[in-house]
């Protein structure tokens, strides 16, 4: 039941026969990325009176963002984008619950927290973040909406993971060339390349507003849109032509193909010191079964010429993506001869030996147990 002031605010919405203010006001949406599309989405969600809007972004505001970002001002330059966007959106409707979550969503959005949302919107600017959010939403069974644009086109894809176990995922139509672009950013199997050049794709406020509008409709399922099937909308923002196509699940898809059924999520909070805790949660079958971690770790660090290095302690058992390929140069002989062993697959016993009762630096671990997929959620609940 809305309070009278809110009822007044949404009076015009009540005249729309297919629009349920009650549903919109109860909706909980995570917006990943507070760039051009993220601004539009947050603005739309706030105007519609969406119940909870959480905005995730690690980036800071730069002046060139201002041509496409409705909620940002010159005075925001240098601030975290999520914080600046949320502050301005609260002016639109102070009754909406809006929260900024600064930082990389991979570090700030746990599976448990994701499961509290009805939908997560990918308003990011790279394949890697989309692949990661797709994986999280697949496991958490939370709807995902992906928005993308360039200087002319706007595309919005919806993946109703929460409604159907058989829905296609973001990777079902992703071409090999996209994976090649992601791979270009890494060397040695997981270290970031220092010389990597980011593609800069020009966009405008026009394409951002169209993508933001379609993404908002898809996220809130306005008009009953996209309830059961994955679909893509592509709109030419100049000519107005557009198409809507259905996305089918692909056999052997690198994203959803790993799961015949959605994985059972088991929260073990990183207690590897006693593997029985883990096995007990999902049956006794984990044993020496390999677990695939969400994040590749540096498992070894040794120079081919100098042998074991004292510096290994700085790198071993940490996420590989934390470091760039400079660490492949030996600090002793200065030759690019360090063998950096990067792995994402370990047994429970190996994890217990490496981390004891300490935290494994990964979000989750996947295993196949008794013919079914199990996801061990390794993160502590947010706020604990």
């Amino acid at each position, binding site marked *: 039941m809305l309070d009278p002031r809110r009822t007044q605010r949404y009076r015009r919405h009540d005249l729309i026969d297919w629009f349920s203010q009650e549903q919109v006001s109860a909706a909980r949406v995570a917006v990943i990325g507070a760039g051009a599309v993220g601004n539009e989405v947050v603005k739309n969600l706030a105007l519609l009176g969406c119940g909870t809007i959480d905005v995730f972004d690690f980036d800071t505001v730069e002046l060139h963002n201002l041509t496409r970002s409705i909620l940002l001002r010159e005075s925001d330059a240098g601030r975290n984008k999520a914080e600046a966007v949320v502050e301005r959106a609260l002016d639109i409707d102070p009754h909406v619950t809006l929260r900024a979550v600064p930082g990389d969503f991979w570090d700030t959005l746990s599976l448990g927290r994701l499961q509290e949302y009805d939908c997560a919107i990918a308003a990011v600017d790279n394949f890697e973040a989309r692949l990661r959010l797709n994986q999280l939403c697949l496991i958490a069974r939370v709807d995902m909406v992906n928005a993308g644009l360039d200087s002319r086109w706007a595309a919005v894809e919806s993946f109703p993971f929460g409604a159907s176990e058989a829905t296609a995922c973001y990777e079902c*139509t992703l071409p090999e060339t996209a994976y090649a672009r992601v791979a270009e950013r890494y060397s040695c199997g997981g270290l970031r390349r220092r010389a990597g050049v980011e593609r800069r794709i020009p966009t405008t406020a026009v394409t951002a507003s169209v993508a933001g509008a379609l993404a908002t409709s898809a996220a809130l399922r306005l008009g009953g849109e996209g309830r059961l099937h994955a679909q893509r909308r592509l709109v030419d923002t100049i000519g107005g032509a557009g198409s809507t196509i259905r996305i089918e699940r692909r056999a052997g898809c690198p994203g959803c193909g790993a799961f015949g059924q959605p994985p059972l999520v088991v929260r073990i909070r990183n207690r590897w010191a006693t593997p029985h805790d883990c096995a007990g949660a999902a049956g006794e079958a984990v044993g020496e079964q390999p677990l695939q971690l969400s994040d590749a770790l540096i498992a070894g660090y040794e120079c081919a010429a100098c042998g074991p290095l004292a510096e290994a302690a700085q790198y071993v058992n940490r996420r590989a993506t934390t470091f760039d390929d400079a660490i492949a140069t030996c600090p002793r002989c200065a030759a690019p001869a360090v063998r950096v062993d990067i792995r994402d697959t370990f047994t429970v016993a190996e994890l217990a030996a490496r981390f004891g009762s300490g935290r494994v630096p990964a979000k989750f671990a996947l295993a196949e147990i008794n013919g079914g997929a199990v996801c061990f959620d390794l993160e502590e609940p947010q706020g604990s």
Partner: protein
Amino acid sequence: MTQSLKLYVRTADQTRRAELDLDSANTGADIIQAAVDNWALPADTDYTLVNTTTGRALAPGDDLAKGVRPGDVLEVQPVLVAG
């Protein structure tokens, strides 16, 4: 057993179109690569292939025998990555 398929291939903005006889063993990725090469589409963009006749996307590695019939119109669509 492969067969020859007479198809129409176009870009999303429909400025480029071709009527082609293609072997059903060709994959969506083959057609995209041919479109990029022959029509000089921007090479720094990624593309997917959509069958506009059926309203379904083609999986990148699938051959045309799956989900394409003679006379279908295939559209090369950009994969948009900016946000």
